[in-house]
């Protein structure tokens, strides 16, 4: 597919290609350091480089903020992402849909598995309170959400989910270093597959370093990255359940789904 239009970053007028960039170089602040920052931007292919700020972040580190132009343009028409066809449902409408078409509470388990102690992600999605004004799954009367907290062994999460015949399992991986989140997620999927979980329920991965593509590669059904609202996850799970029940066609798309 192609056919334009061509798009470029918008600074203060169409197609000016202005972008902003900030980075640190491990050198002391000096005229030479500023020149190095400019050269670095030019090597990125940027033109009209203005090093707006060069700050002494420490004795031997300089922090730069630069503005520059790029000539890169994208063919908007050639970008292939799934079309949005279904509008995301709000709190009341989604509950009503579950009540009508599923006619039982949707059971969801979530945990930070492995060594991760940071429950901020799973809490934002599951706890009553939710995130950025968007209620968590516990608040939905037609969801039954279990937040197992942090440092939950994969086997424990799988066992609990099987016991309650869960519809979906959420694995949250927040703190990550040297890709430990990937190793742990892989282990989860291996164990989940052994237990046949992947056939019975929707397996979701979430976290700041997660995206949908990575989650699919690892064997999850979907991945949710930064900025995900609980309602995005709730909608996704409900559509998955409906598809598994045969009440909705597979391959449908809607607003807010993982991409």
């Amino acid at each position: 597919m192609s056919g334009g239009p061509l798009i470029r970053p918008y600074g203060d007028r169409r197609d000016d290609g202005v972008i902003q960039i900030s980075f640190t170089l491990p050198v002391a602040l000096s005229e030479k350091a500023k020149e190095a920052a400019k050269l670095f931007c030019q090597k990125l292919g940027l033109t009209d480089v203005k090093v707006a700020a060069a700050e002494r972040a420490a004795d031997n580190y300089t922090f730069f903020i630069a503005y520059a132009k790029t000539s890169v343009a994208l063919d908007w028409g050639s970008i292939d992402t799934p079309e949005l066809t279904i509008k995301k449902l709000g709190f009341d409408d989604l509950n009503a849909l579950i009540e009508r078409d599923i006619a039982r509470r949707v059971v969801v388990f979530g945990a930070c598995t492995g060594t991760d102690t940071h429950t901020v992600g799973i809490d934002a999605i599951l706890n009553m309170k939710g995130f950025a004004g968007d209620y968590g799954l516990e608040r939905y009367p037609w969801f039954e959400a279990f937040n197992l907290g942090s440092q939950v062994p994969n086997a424990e999460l799988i066992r609990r989910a099987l016991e309650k015949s869960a519809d979906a399992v959420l694995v949250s991986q927040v703190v990550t270093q040297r890709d430990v989140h990937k190793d742990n997620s892989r282990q989860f999927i291996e164990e989940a597959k052994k237990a046949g979980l992947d056939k019975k329920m929707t397996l979701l991965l979430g976290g700041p370093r997660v995206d949908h593509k990575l989650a699919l590669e690892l064997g999850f059904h979907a991945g949710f990255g930064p900025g995900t609202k609980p309602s995005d996850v709730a909608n996704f799970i409900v559509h998955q359940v409906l598809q598994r029940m045969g009440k909705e066609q597979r391959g449908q798309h809607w607003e807010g789904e993982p991409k």
Partner: protein
Amino acid sequence: MPGPFISDEQVAHARALAKDITEPIFQLIDQNTTVSVERTVLRWFGVDGVGAMGAPLVNLMVDRLHAAGVLGQGAAYWYGRALKLGARSPLEAVERLTAVPLDKLPPLSPQEDAALKDEVRAEARAAIEELKARVDRRNALREEFPMGATPHKYVIVATGNIFDDVDQARAAAQAGADVIAVIRSTAQSLLDYVPHGATTEGYGGTYATQENFRIMREALDDESKKLKRYVQLTNYSSGLCMAEIAFAAAWERLDMLLNDAMYGILFRDINLRRTFIDQYFSRRICAEAGIIINTGEDNYITTADAYDAAHTVIASQFINERFAHRAGLKDWQLGIGHSYEIDPHRPDTLLLELSQAMLVRRCFPDAPLKYMPPTKHKETDIFFSHAYDVMADLVAVWTRQGIQLLGMMTEAMHTPLLADRYVALKSASYVHRAARGIDQEFTVREDGLIANRARSVWERAVKLLEECRDDGMVAAIGRGRFGDVKRSETGGKGLDGVVERSKAYFNPFLEMLEAK
């Protein structure tokens, strides 16, 4: 100071409640010891190093005593017996004790027993003196190079490699940081031993080891001299090794420790009894070493809602304060924790946050207080997050926080980049400089939103304290009153490390620290 909001009698009532609440816990503390407390005793005698398979000697020795069912007498007693058996080094002491069936050792005569204890007491006294000398060295440096003005700007380094941490800590100090925290490797709190030596691999942080403490403190000593401004170091005395970490930190001249009477129970699912017993000895050490503790009430409002659960923070602070006072800590050592965590999408949040921080200041006028930045509602829009952090900077200086952990604009994404720390330090320095003394210029009306909110939070805090007094702490924790987390007295990790003290329990360090 902002507001009375509430009367002095009301504050005194809350303190009296906290005293009643914690009293039964002290029976538990006085009747029991733990493997971690006993390992701390051995460390203080100089038992350092690791044995076969890298297990710390203190673990080998204490596990041996625990398995033989004789730990209730105290590791100090058995250390004395090992010396009597001819051990000339800690390693030999371990070997001696593991070679003999302990229950077969003949009991000592009263005279022998008294002589042994005198000898061990003398050694303990010398070890305490040595610790004091080390602490004095730290204090002399602090006097020579005074610290910056409060709020002390606190930032975290977390590379996993102590040597990289040193580079980042130096950079942060050069950019204006007053306190460096080396965050621990994920899940260290659940290890029932303290790793040994310098470490270069960690996950989400760097292992807390005595050697890592030494390396970082020495680097900061050097940096303090260069900057002519003392830079403080903190770490985490929490988890299954609270007291051992407190000892290692005291020995290596750390300035602060995260140390909360209940955090491990609630947020790491460590057994309740184990935590209460361990926190007491760890705090005795902090008191002795002039370490400022930072309590963890900020965590309650990352799990529970910050608006709805504000009163749990206040109630817990009084309980933490009481535990701390009972362990000999002075007000100047109480970095009582709280945070700026109300959902920023609500209206009036600056006023609500001011109300909460002012109420804490009102209740604990002589404590430094430790203010934590927003985390839960941070966004990946770093520009918004930066503005959000700056509001916390304003509240911190307005309410005279002693210690302020600076928010990072990339909080919702990754461990801070070097530049994130720089940006946070620059803006916090600006806000502190711009607004210092603002509390003396503006008085808060007693009939306004801030005062009314403070009074309503207070009312609920006192109700919660009354509930804890009437039903007991254990029941209140069981009902999820703190942080929405429910824990039972016999659940969680580490209960098997709790040991009833025998009548002959001997811990010369505790004796001497308690006698002060």
